[in-house]
């Protein structure tokens, strides 16, 4: 009996897998068109979406848009005011602030996206498997997550970044550790959310059906349950992208994220502190850039939440 069912199932999935590519693409485009329509109904999501697209376009076009080398000092032109030569003025080394803000943005966005992706990649399997298997696996897994969550605010990052500094990591490895620290600290939140959703889903009938036809447990968890837990995770990841930008800025501001002279919003704000009195503009622009980007992700996340969470959408 079971063997029969299995062969039926194998046949089914095989059939699903040979769906012509064109039909698949048509389905995908239909779903995304619907999604876009839904999104454009929400004003916050639309505005946030436009801001995010703007951010990514600017980040991609940075080499074209920048007017100066962001790192090369020019001592004849220190602390210059706003002019047609330097749109945002120059800092104490005579570097063009406009170009530095652009390059800093490119870097910040790349690191936050990588960190969120890393956090999701380890958090989702962790949470889904923990919620799905339940029992002892769940208890141990969740206590570990709680332990990580007990690190308040910046402290987990501070520990990891301090370690990386002691190991004298430079260039690529320094950035890799930053991504690791940010993603690792994001992991417990993802795991909790995924677990909560998986707990609810695991009791549903379709999961039992998959068991009956003998699908492997890992496969049930990752192929059946996971796709039904995505929506809270999408909202969370969006808002988290904004939060990542804030944390990167804070770490660099403390002198622990990005080493000088690499352009970075937080590090530039820290340098600007010394010249607040004579030259307030240098403290303004990197800060505005941070606010703009964080706001973009928060707006988009808020809009998404209203759409994806039917409970709040009713209001």
């Amino acid at each position, binding site marked *: 009996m079971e063997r029969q069912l299995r062969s039926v199932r194998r046949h089914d999935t095989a059939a699903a897998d040979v769906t012509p590519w064109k039909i698949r693409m048509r389905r995908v485009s239909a779903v995304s068109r619907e999604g876009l329509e839904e999104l454009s109904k929400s004003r916050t999501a639309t505005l946030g979406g436009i801001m995010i697209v703007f951010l990514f376009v600017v980040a991609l076009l940075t080499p074209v848009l920048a007017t100066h080398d962001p790192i090369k000092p020019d001592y004849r032109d220190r602390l210059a005011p706003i002019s047609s030569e330097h749109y945002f003025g120059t800092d104490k080394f005579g570097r063009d602030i406009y170009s530095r803000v652009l390059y800093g943005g490119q870097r910040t966005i790349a690191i936050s996206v990588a960190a969120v992706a890393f956090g999701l990649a380890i958090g989702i399997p962790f949470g889904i498997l923990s919620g799905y298997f339940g029992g002892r696996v769940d208890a141990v897994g969740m206590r570990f997550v709680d332990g990580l969550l007990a690190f*308040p605010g*910046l402290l987990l990052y501070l520990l990891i970044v301090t370690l990386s500094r002691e190991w004298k990591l430079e260039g690529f490895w320094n950035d890799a550790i930053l991504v690791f620290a940010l993603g690792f600290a994001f992991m417990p939140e993802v795991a909790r959310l995924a677990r909560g959703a998986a707990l609810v889903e695991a009791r549903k009938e379709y999961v039992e059906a998959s068991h009956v036809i003998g699908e492997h447990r890992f496969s049930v968890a990752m192929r059946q349950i996971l796709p039904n837990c995505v929506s809270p995770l999408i909202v969370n990841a969006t808002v988290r992208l904004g939060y990542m930008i804030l944390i990167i800025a804070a770490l660099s501001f*403390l002198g622990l994220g990005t080493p000088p002279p690499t352009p970075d919003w937080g590090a530039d704000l820290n340098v600007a502190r010394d010249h607040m009195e004579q030259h307030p503009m240098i403290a303004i622009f990197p800060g505005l850039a941070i606010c703009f980007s964080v706001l973009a992700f928060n707006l988009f996340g808020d809009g998404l939440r209203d759409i994806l969470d039917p409970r709040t959408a009713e209001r």
Partner: protein
Amino acid sequence: MLVYVLNRILQLIPVVFVLSVLVFGFVHALPGDVIDSLAGDEAAEDPEVRAALEKEFGLDQPIYVQYAVWAGKVLQGDFGKSLVTRRPVSVELLERIPATVYLAVVGIGLSMPIAVPLGTIAAIRRNTPTDYAAQISSLIGISIPEFWFAILCIMLFSLHLGWLPSSGYVSPLDDLGLSLTYLVLPALAIGFRQAAYTTRLTRSSMLDEVHKEYVDTARSLGLPERKIIYKYTLRNALIPTVTISGLQLANLLGGTVVLESIFSWPGIGLTIYQAIQLRDFPVIQAGVLVLGVMVVTINLLVDILYRFLNPRVGLS
């Protein structure tokens, strides 16, 4: 209730265990030998001193024994000595706790009287210009980095207007008036973000309450709208607000590292920051552990408070 409390306390043990293992592992993950990091260069070169130190720190033992010994000492409040000042770490930290708590509590205290009415009004007048204004300003509020806001405040109030000192700390026990002038800017920087956060929270939990059946019942009984809102809905809506603010307090304790370093505020955050700069590892280790345990404890108290305020939440 008692069973629940005991249960929650038992659940803390593995959490604190994970926390302590990570913090313990931190020093051992430092490059080179622990002795290099703990004892300074001169001592590390001499093989005899080295052997003595290894014995003293118990480094000739297997790692789990080292952990057990370390954990035993920590439980007795012995975190070792600072590498910089040579004083016991526990003393250094104890001195710094009051300033951090002072700042965090005043910061949250400032935010509540602004945020709760604002969130309530926004929820009552949902989808009106008032609501949009409250929503947009709170969204902008949570998007502004605290340290940037702090810098802008210093630029305006200290450098431009010259009303307030730009950094420093005076204990309120020594001179209350002077202490307050130092407190204004850092507390403002914390309170600002906190207020934005709490406004959003109050609004959404008010909206949850307004749609419940008891509100309809009260209306059909002819109770005045004002009374329904202030006597019933707001009270219920405040339960999640208060509890989450408690959790925020815990988060603030860790987040004050940046603000304390801007304002030279001598709290735990500044201690950890300075220890990182000076590579004073025992202080970093202990500071993180102490803050972590404070956070876990506050979370526990808040959880218990929540069940107490809202007995409908299952005790399971």
